[in-house]
């Protein structure tokens, strides 16, 4: 189970990188960046998970609720989702303007900052 859980994190991050490197459309690349971003959320929550643990919400719990899951990693993952959403929105705004000015969305065709 650990191999599957942590393997998915590495897989998501690397497939996101692959998507960014081989992308032919800026909007496609931006969504690939958000895939890589979600890898970090999954890692944080997997670190905080406790087998058989219940959510850190202490209301209407059974008599012997057992251990609770880590609330700190959930707070970190919450911040990370917000950061991911805002960076994705900013990149999409940039992509829209690049298409308007450069006429193309293909990252390999963007030569304005060529050496």
């Amino acid at each position, binding site marked *: 189970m650990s191999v599957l859980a942590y393997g998915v994190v590495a897989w998501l991050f690397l497939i996101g990188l692959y998507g960014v490197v081989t992308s032919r*459309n800026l909007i496609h690349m931006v969504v690939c960046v958000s895939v890589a971003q979600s890898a970090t959320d999954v890692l944080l929550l997997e670190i905080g998970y406790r087998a058989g643990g219940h959510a850190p919400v202490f209301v209407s719990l059974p008599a012997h609720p057992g251990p609770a899951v880590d609330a700190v990693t959930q707070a970190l993952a919450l911040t990370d989702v917000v950061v991911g959403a805002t960076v994705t929105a900013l990149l999409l705004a940039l992509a829209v303007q690049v298409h308007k000015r450069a006429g193309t969305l293909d990252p390999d065709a963007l030569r304005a900052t060529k050496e």
Partner: protein
Amino acid sequence: MSDAVIAVALVWVAASGTAVVLTRDPLQQAFVAGFFGLGLAFLYLSMQAGDVALSQIVVGAIALPLIVLLSLAKVRKGRE
């Protein structure tokens, strides 16, 4: 039992994440990304993270698809 649910969610997330990257057309990718976001929310829920699952649903189902589709509409409009 909960480990089985998490395993299913993990496989769903990994498969749909790969699908998001491999669909090159942004419009189709937007739909697969919605499916991927739903998978993430299901995974977070199965790992007892209610707050994060709710914010993933909210971001993945409302905020990002709307912005991606509006960007695509602007980009497509520019092409005619």
